[in-house]
């Protein structure tokens, strides 16, 4: 079984919970304190093996997860942040519908640099929503062209966080 290193970018505007999702996934920790990210932090996590097809050779990914600070100005530096990514987790904040619009702009830039990358969409902070069955329609449009449904997560409780990363690992290997 081969181990493949894959670069994964966390995408989304400020305060959607990118760092908290990584922290929950990699270290199984959560902090209520909001600390803005500056620059980029790369975390590593070995993913469970995935099998491309029945009886196929399982592949195991080492995810290099790029937690990138909220990006307001798109320049060559941002392209460098994105370059070489195999996939991304695109994150919106369920309590702020406008984060869906901001994500769309970030994704346009991301796909311009990494057109082949696989993206899994995450709607985070479900713990703050009074009725999770009613999600703002602005989020529905997000996953229309995506590889998967919108995954509703909570970095605080850990709900569906691992599922999102695991799904990305599977999708990367799907031809």
């Amino acid at each position, binding site marked *: 079984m081969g181990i493949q*290193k894959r670069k994964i970018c966390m995408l989304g505007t400020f305060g959607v919970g990118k760092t908290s999702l990584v922290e929950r996934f990699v270290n199984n920790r959560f902090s209520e304190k909001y600390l803005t990210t500056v620059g*980029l932090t790369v975390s590593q996590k070995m993913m469970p093996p995935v099998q491309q097809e029945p009886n196929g050779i399982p592949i195991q990914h080492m995810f290099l997860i790029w937690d990138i600070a909220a990006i307001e100005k798109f320049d060559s530096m941002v392209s460098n942040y994105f370059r070489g990514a195999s996939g991304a987790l695109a994150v919106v904040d369920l*309590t702020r519908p406008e984060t869906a619009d901001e994500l769309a702009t970030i994704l346009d830039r991301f796909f311009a640099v990494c057109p082949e990358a696989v993206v899994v969409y995450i709607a985070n902070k479900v713990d703050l929503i*009074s009725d999770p069955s009613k999600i703002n329609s602005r989020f529905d449009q997000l996953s229309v062209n995506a590889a998967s449904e919108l995954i509703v997560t909570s970095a605080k409780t850990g709900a569906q966080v691992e599922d999102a990363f695991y799904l990305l690992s599977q999708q990367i290997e799907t031809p």
Partner: protein
Amino acid sequence: MVDTLKILLDVNGFGRITFDQQLQVIEASLAVQKLLSQTIENTPTVAVTDIFPELIGVENQLLQIVAKQIPYYRLNLLNRTDENGQTRYLNLTILACSEEERAIIVIEDATAKAMDLQRTNQQRYDTFLYRSSLEHRRNQVGRAILGKSKAIQHIVDTIQQLGHVPTAKVLLTGETGTGKNLTARMIHESAMTYDAPFIEINCAAFPEQLLEAELFGHEKGAFTGAISTKPGLLEKADGGTLFLDEIGELPPSTQAKLLSTIESKTFRRLGSTTSYKVNVRIIAATNRDLTVEISKNRFREDLYYRLNVVSLHLPPLRELGEDIIMIAQQLVKTLNLQFKKSVKGFSSAARQALLSHHWPGNARELGNCIERAMIFIKNDVIDLPDLVIMSPVEPATSTDPRHWAVPDTGLDLDQVARSLILSALQQANNNKSKAAQLLGLTRHTLRYRMEKYDLN
């Protein structure tokens, strides 16, 4: 040339790592060990991607730099946390160098710059996130509802208390234009999460059957024209607030259905046998005295008591004293931005006129009056002639002692007369005979006074 570059980098505290076309480390300067808090062996067994996993995925770019095909690649503000939990921020520049099949990674310590950036961003984002929080929205109640009078303070206090009880039904009473809609919104905002819907309906604006269909929704074919199933406003308001404005106009059959919904927390769409559960806060408002409506059998007593868990009476503008000026000043401030003017406020005569008027249309009438003045004003202070007060004059039997009373600071009778003539002309669409009639003057006298006040 390369040596010069190395010397320059070393003396300025930059770290440098030279690597080859296998991306293996050839040489690392002493500064690298300090910047990365780790020992780097100068042997070709270590790959640059082992030292900087950030370079995984861009190996092709690195090889192109080694081959002198592209000049450089840069990554800013890489985070590195050492054993003591200290975070260092690094800028990386990967440069082609003059040696064959070699490139160099220049490492710059950018921690100070990053910390400054972090502080600035933290302040900005904290402020933004606080502004969108429930706590902030509760605090906003005091700012959205203007006034320092006891009556206004009572309203603000009540709304803030209601913010902690998001299920209590509220009955808002008060004359038209006293801000019932704004108050309902504030009650909603201070109690509900951001995503909770606020749905309002004016019960006077729909005929009986349409009102029922709007409120409860209908199934396809429930009545002529019901070409598809449509959920009602109650469903849309689920998890939030339903604001029933002019509840006094609700037809008796709809009153019964609403009562049943409030009691059972369920309802049925028109033409449906299925009951739907609903969790909604109901805020009702009326400018009628519902107890009188009950005595005349026009409003159900049981519904009244169901709705009237908390009642809040919104006082008319004329009872708010100096708050009128505060509200008017706020309107001027807003309209200055809208009309790109710089009006400072009101002359003392204008202030007295605002305080003396009866304001039967309340805030709505005040808003129109100030907006009219702001459209036509050429000076930077609104004076009495600029204020055209349009509401009907109260009959002489008015019991309000301030009506037509001379303010303590006195007034300019000519200005008042001029303003009244302007108002009469406006009401009469510039028909002088009608305007004269409104003022109890002959047409001849009106013309004389118009000349006197330069109104021709």
